[in-house]
């Protein structure tokens, strides 16, 4: 019965959005309860649907929109786990926000927008066709724009919001181009080959797409999947479109948590997972996915090392972890087939829990000390025990702590190690070890930067005497719930993989699963991720707690490497100044303006056409002598000529 009401998963938060936006200021606590109730409703329906369709059912509803397009709902294993995660994490963040945003005057707007944000993300997840997916995807982009620019009176926030929208828009255009190309290919396939849609199916539905894969030319398929991946790169902040994510920290911390954990950035990974059968048939595209993902994982982690803004560190951490998910889809996809979706999605979910936790903890800290700057924090452990503890749990999960032999560990341990193992297996099979090296190095850096953050914030002596205090229960309870998930979610690993593997079979797609054919990685490979994790913890402990190295000597203006990292590889300057201002605005737009004003208006119209007509007039006006006799002479001449002509022509 829950499945029949699946549309409500999206509609409830949409209704809450409208009501809160227009009537929120008349409701208690800025209308916060409305979105919370709506999202709780979404969560309950998602959960109910899960129990209904488990272990191998799905919900499919579809209706014609117009022409050959449709609106529809597809809840398969892949979608339902996402639905539960999105609605659950979003629910916790909303509850937390009641405390965090308590003093903001624009609460109705905040809660309305986050409600729409969640609705859009849920709509992305349960779309049954790629166009609806794209539409919801764009609404997600809009909401991120609105929320990053929530404090629009801050110029930096307004600029960051714009950047987020524009950079993701670059990806969206690629995505749209992919859809265009797909539609054209599908139509050609239907008209030119024996392939036909099943009755009741629509052209852009996922199941139609997957059914048509064998008929589409491989090069076309590679281009389409690469274009889709372009969209994912934009949304998931992969290199080179990663720059908007750290800037997006201008929004309230709860918004960052939403963007980084539950909504938005995971949509990119979800897109690749959703269209995975197409990627599997386009190995070149998978290779690109693997390399972009792997490179992003390590590239973002290096910048995470030096950031001083607590939220920026976490932002780069997200970029890096999303890189892991892409890496998993790319590498494991090539050697393990459909299991890659399970591996990647599992990390997506566990990341959602501990990243939401990290952000909410950071929010709690910021709420308490009133600054984002790590250098001004320190020694908060005593004052904020719950926050510090939960954040330490989250850090352990992010760094992937656990014991390989006993299958005991945090959520991140299970999910991340699977990715690293997948990368190793890919290297083992193909001989290409680069993705594996990327992932191991990134794991080391991850551990260093996250414990650096924790030690700088919570240990040592307070570097500033602010009156910090623990947050109210409305904020700490969600932290504790998330901490439970960050600790124990990993134990669902086997069941999760098994459940997701049925996913594409349900859609009638066969993806060869090479279930670890006699592949048993050596103990070193199994232990290496945890070793680098511990190594990172130790390094951070020694540097930031014991202070065996004087960081102020390394961290100077003269150190070019530090400067490079601190300036984020000069990406902001490059994208907004060089590309945005100089190239686009300065060159292209101003050239156009020049052409318009000077060439078309100035030269063609004013000079050529006007002047010609005027000088022609100057010549012709001489005929008008003003002497009546001339006129009469000409007139008689004309009549005479006319008569002669008529005589000639008339005969």
């Amino acid at each position, binding site marked *: 019965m829950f499945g029949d009401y699946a549309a409500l998963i999206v509609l409830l938060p949409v209704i809450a959005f409208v009501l809160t936006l227009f009537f929120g200021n008349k409701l208690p606590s800025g209308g916060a309860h409305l979105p919370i109730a709506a999202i709780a409703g979404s969560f309950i329906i998602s959960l109910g649907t899960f129990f209904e369709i488990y272990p191998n059912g799905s919900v499919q509803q579809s209706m014609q929109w117009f022409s050959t397009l449709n609106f529809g709902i597809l809840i398969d294993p892949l979608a339902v786990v996402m639905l539960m995660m999105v609605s659950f994490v979003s629910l916790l963040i909303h509850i937390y926000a009641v405390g965090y945003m308590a003093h903001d005057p624009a609460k109705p707007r905040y809660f309305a927008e986050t409600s729409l944000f969640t609705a859009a993300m849920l709509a992305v997840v349960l779309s049954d066709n790629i166009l609806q997916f794209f539409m919801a995807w764009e609404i997600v982009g809009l909401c991120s724009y609105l929320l990053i620019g929530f404090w629009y009176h801050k110029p930096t926030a*307004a600029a960051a919001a714009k950047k987020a929208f524009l950079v993701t828009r670059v990806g969206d255009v690629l995505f749209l181009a992919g859809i265009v190309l797909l539609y054209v290919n599908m139509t050609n396939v239907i008209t030119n080959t024996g392939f036909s849609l099943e009755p009741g199916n629509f052209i852009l539905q996922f199941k139609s797409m997957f059914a048509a894969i064998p008929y589409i030319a491989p090069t076309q398929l590679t281009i389409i999947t690469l274009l889709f991946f372009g969209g994912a790169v934009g949304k998931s902040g992969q290199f080179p479109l990663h720059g908007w994510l750290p800037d997006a920290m201008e929004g309230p911390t709860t918004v960052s948590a939403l963007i980084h954990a539950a909504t938005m950035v995971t949509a990119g990974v979800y897109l690749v997972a959703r269209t995975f059968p197409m990627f599997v048939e386009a190995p070149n595209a998978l290779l690109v996915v693997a390399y972009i993902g792997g490179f992003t994982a390590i590239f973002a982690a290096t910048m995470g090392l030096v950031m001083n803004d607590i939220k920026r560190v976490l932002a780069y951490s997200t970029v890096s972890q999303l890189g892991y998910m892409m890496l998993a889809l790319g590498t494991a996809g090539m050697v393990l087939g459909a299991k890659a979706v399970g591996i990647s999605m599992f990390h997506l979910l566990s990341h959602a829990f501990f990243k939401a936790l990290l952000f909410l903890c950071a929010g709690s800290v910021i709420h308490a000390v009133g600054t984002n700057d790590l250098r001004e924090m320190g020694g908060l452990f005593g004052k904020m025990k719950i926050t510090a503890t939960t954040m330490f749990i989250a850090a352990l999960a992010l760094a992937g702590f656990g014991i390989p032999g006993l299958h005991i560990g945090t959520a991140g341990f299970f999910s991340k190690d699977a990715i690293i193992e997948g990368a190793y297996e890919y290297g083992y099979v193909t001989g290409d070890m680069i993705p594996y090296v990327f992932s191991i190095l990134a794991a080391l850096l991850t551990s260093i930067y996250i414990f650096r953050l924790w030690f700088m914030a919570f240990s040592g002596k307070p570097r500033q005497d602010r009156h910090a205090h623990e947050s109210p229960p409305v904020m700490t309870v969600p932290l504790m719930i998330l901490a439970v998930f960050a600790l124990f979610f990993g134990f669902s690993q086997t069941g999760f993989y098994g459940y997701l593997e049925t996913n594409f079979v349900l859609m009638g797609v066969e993806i060869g699963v090479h279930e670890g054919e006699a592949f048993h990685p050596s103990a070193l490979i199994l232990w290496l991720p945890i070793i680098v994790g511990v190594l990172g913890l130790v390094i951070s402990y020694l540097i930031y707690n014991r202070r065996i190295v004087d960081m102020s000597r390394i961290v100077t203006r003269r150190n070019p490497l530090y400067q490079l990292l601190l300036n984020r590889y000069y990406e902001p300057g490059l994208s907004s100044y060089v590309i945005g201002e100089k190239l686009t605005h300065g060159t292209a737009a101003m050239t156009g303006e020049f052409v318009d004003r000077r060439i078309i208006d100035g030269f063609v119209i004013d000079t050529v056409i006007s002047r010609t007509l005027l000088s022609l007039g100057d010549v012709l006006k001489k005929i008008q002598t003003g002497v009546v006799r001339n006129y009469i002479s000409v007139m008689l001449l004309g009549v005479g000529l006319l008569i002669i002509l008529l005589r000639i022509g008339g005969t």
Partner: protein
Amino acid sequence: MALISLMILVPLIGAIIAFLTKTRQQARAVALAASVIPLVISLYLFAYFNSGVTDIQFYESYPWIQTLGISLSFGIDGVSLPLVLLATIIIPLTVIFAWGETEQANKFYGLILLELVGILGVFTSLDFFVFYIFWEVVLIPMYFLISIWGGPRKDYAAIKFFIYTHVASLVMLLAIFALYFNAWQASGVFNFDMLYLLSSYSLIESGMLRDAVFLGLLFGFLVKMPAVPFHTWLPDAHVEAPTAGSVILAALLLKMGGYGLFRVILPTLPFTDSTAILITLMAVIGVLSILYGTFLALAQRDLKKMVAYSSISHMGYVTLGAAALVPLSISGAMFQQFSHGLITGVLFMSCGVIQHSAGTRIIHELGGLAKHMPKLALLMMAGFMASLGLPGMSGFVAEFLVLVNSYFTLPTFVILALFSIVFTAAYHLWAMQRAMFGTYNEKLGHIHDGANYEIFAMGVLVLLVIYFGLNPGSVLNMMTANAEHLDRLLRFAVLRGVIT
């Protein structure tokens, strides 16, 4: 029932009454009444329109100058009805938006009603001569709207507008006469009936003359749209025009050009001598308009001018979709006309409210307006998002249909057009950031939000944009039959071997 002539007559009578009224209260009441009645009629037409067929419906014809074969004949089909609906939606809302007009109010409202007369005439008349008369009728009230209620350079802008569009319509008139006399030569009967003349186009013997006539007609419509490089009148006209004038200009006058493309250009295109070249020409102009309009919008400092250039860019999709000659791309282009009419109304109204409250539209002189104008900020944001093609709003459906379906025949041009999407978003967001967000520019002093009637007019448009974005079928279905009909003509051309 002479519904269409009634729809044209009511605003005409209303205009005369409005001119004669003494107070502005009377004038605006007359204007509202005389523009709402056509809306009711067009909604009736909308409800009883049979969208499955391509025939002209609600046809009515009265003899006028019989010796020359001119008759007052009106009718609608899937090409014209959505535009009739658009015109009758926009004009009452414009009257409501301009509810506070004080300067020579009776003339102002009278001219707006005259605009409605002309536009409805253009969209419904089926006699080429009458069509041309209405085409010119549209021009004159707009000239006065700009030159009386305009900004500082109103005379320049009004003259420029007039000369550009008038030259274009004269060229078009020549082409119409060529069609007329050719049909007369072929049959010995004088007849100005539009569909008859169009079907006789193929009887012109000389291939060069056929192309010349086609280009004459095309020129007439492209200038009106306006397409690059005949577009420079538009930004000037918009900058100087009063808000109501801008709304009518962008939402309705430009659509006359697009209407001409579907009504006149596409049926004649298969019979031209060099069809393939002409299709490429149209596609080039379409894509050039899209890209060029986008970049120019990016360069503007004046909010209204930026919106004007965005109109050029969006109308490029109409040309592109028409040139692609795929049924759904043609319907998409028609839908783009309809959708852009609604969206651009919101944008120009936003500019009007800002101009009115802040006293300037120069983007960098504004800043942080959202703080004091929350309602405007919401509506303007909705309008901007619709304009940059956000899904869920009507602009997305139109542009998606055009892009997807044009790819079948014009892949290169579609790829070029895709580039504009990011930059389209860029200038909208840039303007939003500078004008509405950031710190409030204290130099603006105390400003107030839009008046209730202004917010109402914009709100209705935004709701319509969302409605047609979610339910495009209600309008799109009407267009599809006609678009397929046009496409059949073109497939006939393929059979003749003129295009591939």
